[in-house]
């Protein structure tokens, strides 16, 4: 019924726009004006030949009458209704609302999109304020300077006598701390200014590294083939990039590129591509364990090589992931600290640790050298499904009678099916083979009754 209502309203709208009388349109398609009136007021079902005749007479495609521009509007309104904590009073009334009051429906949809954008910004800011080591260090610097100035100034204004040598010394200290405070405050303001802007200048060393990697799409062709002097190439890559400003970011970039080069030597891109093309199935072409066995290279290296390949490679079965060829990757050390992030749309990765403990990445740390394959559903807005592969392998050389340190990797591949968020978070979701529900981090995860929750969610509980 709702679809019929929409179609009738659109027919009427289009006819009026053409300044066509109801009787004329009715005559054109061979029906009575009164019957057309019923159709236009959504009291009669329409389809088949009559729909084709009406669309031809109105000079539009049939789909423009059955779907129209309202399709996207309705989808947004449905999304807004499902995101509301209160049950929708009349789910089918959404289409009626869009048909009868398109302007107000547009305002509602626009407000919903705005709320989503603001929630995203809140997530980013909350993540930064809670876990950002740069921000914590900056605030410490500011407060330390203020403390020193306050303590010193209090001595200077004290009416008790101070020896000239001490007085000069305290004046000098205040001057130094004031300059340090001004510098720290300026840097902090600049940093916070950029916190809510997706394309803002990034300041922390980790930000710098990630910006560098994203600007290259994690792909460094210069290090792929025979490289005579890899150190020189790596140094040039770092020196030429404007994103890498701090010494820490440059050091991290060097470690990343050195490992990239070792991986490229161990598993050349052409060899990986050949193995993918010769895989028994499209699924095997992206399965790190299957590729590892075929190529005699450890799974973690295969994961890194898959994630740094160009995202669209000719000849590859791009449809394995239903049209998606993008691949995400995240790695962590034995403390759970995230080391490498290649984000994937729909599977957000926290920027400063404190990730969701339900990630198979962390399960892998509990079962070193045991590859894990798991379907997961993300608790984010769209509740997307992903196939993830995880493994924890030792880092460094093995030494007799010494426990190795482990590093875990998780490869993330998108699956096509999506489910409304309300269903994804349902407490009654089937268990067993059901996808594992995962999030980004507790603070911005709406999942209820999660055993892994460390702190309340600002999305459901507010600040």
């Amino acid at each position, binding site marked *: 019924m709702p679809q019929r209502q929409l179609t009738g309203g659109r027919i009427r709208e289009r006819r009026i726009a053409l300044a066509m009388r109801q009787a004329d349109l009715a005559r054109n398609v061979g029906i009575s004006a009164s019957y057309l009136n019923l159709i236009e007021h959504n009291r009669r079902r329409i389809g088949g030949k009559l729909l084709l005749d009406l669309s031809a007479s109105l000079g539009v495609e049939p789909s423009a009458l059955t779907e129209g521009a309202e399709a996207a509007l309705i989808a947004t309104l449905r999304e807004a209704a499902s995101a509301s904590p209160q049950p929708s009073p009349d789910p089918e009334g959404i289409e009626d609302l869009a048909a009868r009051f398109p302007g107000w429906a547009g305002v509602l949809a626009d407000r919903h999109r705005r709320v989503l954008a603001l929630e995203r910004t809140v997530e980013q800011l909350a993540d930064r304020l809670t876990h950002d080591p740069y921000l914590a260090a900056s605030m410490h610097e500011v*407060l330390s300077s203020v*403390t020193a100035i*306050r303590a010193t100034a209090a*001595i200077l204004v004290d009416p008790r006598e101070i020896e000239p040598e001490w007085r000069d010394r305290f004046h000098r200290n205040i001057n130094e701390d004031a300059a340090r405070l001004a510098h720290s405050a300026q840097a902090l303001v600049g940093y916070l200014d950029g916190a809510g802007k997706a394309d803002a200048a990034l300041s922390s060393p980790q930000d710098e590294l990630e910006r560098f990697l994203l600007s290259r799409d994690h792909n460094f062709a210069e290090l792929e083939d025979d490289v005579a002097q890899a150190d020189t190439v790596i140094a040039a890559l770092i020196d030429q990039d404007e994103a890498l400003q701090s010494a820490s970011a440059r050091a991290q970039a060097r470690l990343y590129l050195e490992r990239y080069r070792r991986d490229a030597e161990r598993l050349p891109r052409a060899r990986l591509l050949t193995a993918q093309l010769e895989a028994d199935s499209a699924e095997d072409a992206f399965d790190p364990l299957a590729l590892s066995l075929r190529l005699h290279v450890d799974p973690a290296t295969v994961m890194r090589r898959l994630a740094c390949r160009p995202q669209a490679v000719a000849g590859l079965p791009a449809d394995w992931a239903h049209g998606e060829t993008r691949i995400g990757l995240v790695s962590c050390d034995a403390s759970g600290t995230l080391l490498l992030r290649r984000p994937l749309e729909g599977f957000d990765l926290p920027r400063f640790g404190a990730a969701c403990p339900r990630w198979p990445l962390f399960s892998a740390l509990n079962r070193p050298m045991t590859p894990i394959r798991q379907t997961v559903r993300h608790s984010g807005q769209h509740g997307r499904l992903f196939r993830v592969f995880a493994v924890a392998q030792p880092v460094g050389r093995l030494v007799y009678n010494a426990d190795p340190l482990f590093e875990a990797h998780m490869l993330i591949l998108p699956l096509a099916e999506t489910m409304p968020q309300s269903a994804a978070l349902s407490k009654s979701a089937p268990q067993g083979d059901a996808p594992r529900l995962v999030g980004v981090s507790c603070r911005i995860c709406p999942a209820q009754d999660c055993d892994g929750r460390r702190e309340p969610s600002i999305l459901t509980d507010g600040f």
Partner: protein
Amino acid sequence: MARRVLIIEDEPNIIEAISFILTRDGWQVDTHSNGHDAVSVVQARAPDLVILDVMLPGRSGYDILTDLRALPATQDLPVLMLTARGQARDRELAEKAGASRFMTKPFSNADVIEALNALVAE
């Protein structure tokens, strides 16, 4: 005999200011500026009271204090913790580690002297 206080803090100008006011107030002041060997320094110098910063190079003040409380010689040593944070969580951590008092930066000189005098009176 002057009471002896050990300031474990990594900001030189804060050390200098606190040292000055405490010396003027009659304290014998000693200082140390890193967390690595702070526990052994406290043991070696045996002060009457310690002012301990939380964020130190090498080791956090919470860890240092936890170690001090595990040692018989320092388990009852009065310790005033200084931190740039002031949230309830930080106060809980300080109390859990065994802090005698907790003070948030920026503090006033008078508050520091008052806190120290109260600690020695206890």
